[in-house]
């Protein structure tokens, strides 16, 4: 009988509380961040979709000029790149950068799910700050986004992209992509901090992806753009990451300035987002 539960004496064991935490919110932070990671890898579907999208860009869009007769002319006048550069090679950094635009969407959606299923209440009824919740969701999203990088690099190799540049240049590019991903995740989660509507993240994603992708130099060189689009591209972090990557992939060199811009972008978004979320993160 399930009704006959014993109410036996429970030996009192003291769950020892830590003294002052070495890092404020450190325990809560690692717990919630690991939760994000565990949940991501329990849902391989999300990972497959995350990877499939940039892969398809590379495969389909990247092959769009495969049959251009005079490829030297194409390289020089369209890509503004050294003769012999393939379009997939040119495109790889742009596609990787563009794919960082919407990775915040998954974090936003899981935050909204936590609000709607009440889990946010369970977290915030413990000594956990809203800033911690926000930062773990942001970094969880960014981590999820980074999973696609190694897969994409293998795909690029399979498409015959020559790997110019040293290991450090590539690591620098991956760091740049990380900063871009953190920045956009931070932006995304701050935008949806007070939202409880499933549709919001998708709408925001659609809204920002198109202009930031095309006005960035990610798909074609910005030097071909009209003046007004160049203006946007000059301030578009997707452009910084694309150019940083293109230096590595096409020229085998590295430009620290772009990495610096990306660091500033990520830091600014994290600071602003934390301030917004501390105040406006809704509980349910």
């Amino acid at each position: 009988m399930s009704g006959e539960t014993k109410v036996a004496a429970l030996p009192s064991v003291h769950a020892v509380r830590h003294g002052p935490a070495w890092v404020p919110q450190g325990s809560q932070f690692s717990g919630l961040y690991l939760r994000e990671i565990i949940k991501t890898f329990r849902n391989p579907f999300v990972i497959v979709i995350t990877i499939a999208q940039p892969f398809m860009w590379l495969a389909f869009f990247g092959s769009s000029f495969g049959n251009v007769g005079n490829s030297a002319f194409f390289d020089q006048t369209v890509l503004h790149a050294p003769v012999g550069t393939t379009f997939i090679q040119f495109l790889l950094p742009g596609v990787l950068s563009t794919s960082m635009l919407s990775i915040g969407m998954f974090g936003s959606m899981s935050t909204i799910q936590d609000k709607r299923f009440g889990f946010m209440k369970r977290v915030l009824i413990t000594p956990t700050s809203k800033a911690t919740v926000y930062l773990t969701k942001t970094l969880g999203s960014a981590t999820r986004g980074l999973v696609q990088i190694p897969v994409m690099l293998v795909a690029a190799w399979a498409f015959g992209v020559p790997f110019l540049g040293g290991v450090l240049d590539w690591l620098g590019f991956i760091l740049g992509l990380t900063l871009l991903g953190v920045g956009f995740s931070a932006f995304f989660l701050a935008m949806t901090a007070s939202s409880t509507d499933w549709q919001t993240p998708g709408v925001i994603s659609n809204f920002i992806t198109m202009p930031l992708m095309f006005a960035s130099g990610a798909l074609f060189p910005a030097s071909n753009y009209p003046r007004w689009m160049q203006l946007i591209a000059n301030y578009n972090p997707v452009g910084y990451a694309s150019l940083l990557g293109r230096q590595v992939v096409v020229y085998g060199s590295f430009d620290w300035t772009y990495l610096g811009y990306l660091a500033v972008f990520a830091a600014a978004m994290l600071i602003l987002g934390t301030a917004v979320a501390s105040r406006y993160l809704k509980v349910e």
Partner: protein
Amino acid sequence: MSDENGDAIVAEGLTKRYGAITAVDHVNFRVPSGSVFGLLGPNGAGKTTIIKVLTGLSDMTEGTARVAGYDVRKEPMHVKERIGWVAAEVILDDDLSGWENLWLQAKLQRLSGWTVRAEQLLEYFELSDRRKDKVGKYSTGMRKKMEIALALLHQPAIIFMDEPTIGLDPNVRRMLWKLITGVNREFGVTVLLTSHYIEEADSLCDRVAIIDHGKFVATGTPSELKSRVRADFIELETKGDVSEERLRAVPGVSEVRSQGKAWILKVSSAEDVLPGLFAALKGDVIRRINVEKPSLESVFIDITGKRMDQAGGGDVQDFRKFYMQVRRARQ
């Protein structure tokens, strides 16, 4: 964990407004350490809002509250380290296993050396053999027990339970009553629970506050409250119209209130009044008649003039909770 007077919770002038709606209206109460205190009232009376404000989930509009010896507004983190919470709708991370849910709770409460206690709680709640399964696959009763285990992990001084038995079948409900009493006695934990089940508040709580429209309308031990109403209530619905005067004229009837098409009569003793009432209504068809002997329900009727299940009305929140129970039950 309590203040100098031995009170686990002290609320003074507690008020919460959502725009123009006052959900909780200048409520004052104290909950002695180690007791079970019940907030009894219809849906939408403000019970859940009181829990939200006391646990720091929602900011109060006015008033002060001390929970476990700390000011809820000024020292919310100290309060949160000392309270546990059991939600009406059973909130767990369904993608994580039972053990992982406990692990996360330990992280969020910054515990060390929690595993032994977690093992014992699982043992106590008979969940040990399912610890590695995702909690999304647990039965409703197991989920509820898991939630209580989470609430107890960090040895809280106070546990807040919002409608602990809503949507549970009678077996699980009885089991949960035993657990709540057990948790209170064995662990000395103060329990504040909300309910709209009369018998639940009556059998579990040391003290009960009856709440309606955000205000406390009566507070006391269940027996104190019941002894206040030295009367029975008769609810009556007839086919035709019956005039109030005819009902008043029946010997033993002290009060007559209309409730829609029905009447509520306050009488000295239902057994003595019923024969006279039937005689007076000869010729009218009685559709329904119900006798309410002294209970917390009759206290509510006496004060508010309506039954608890007729008060409040369409509560969206409650519907959502119910829907979520159904959704989970189907999985």
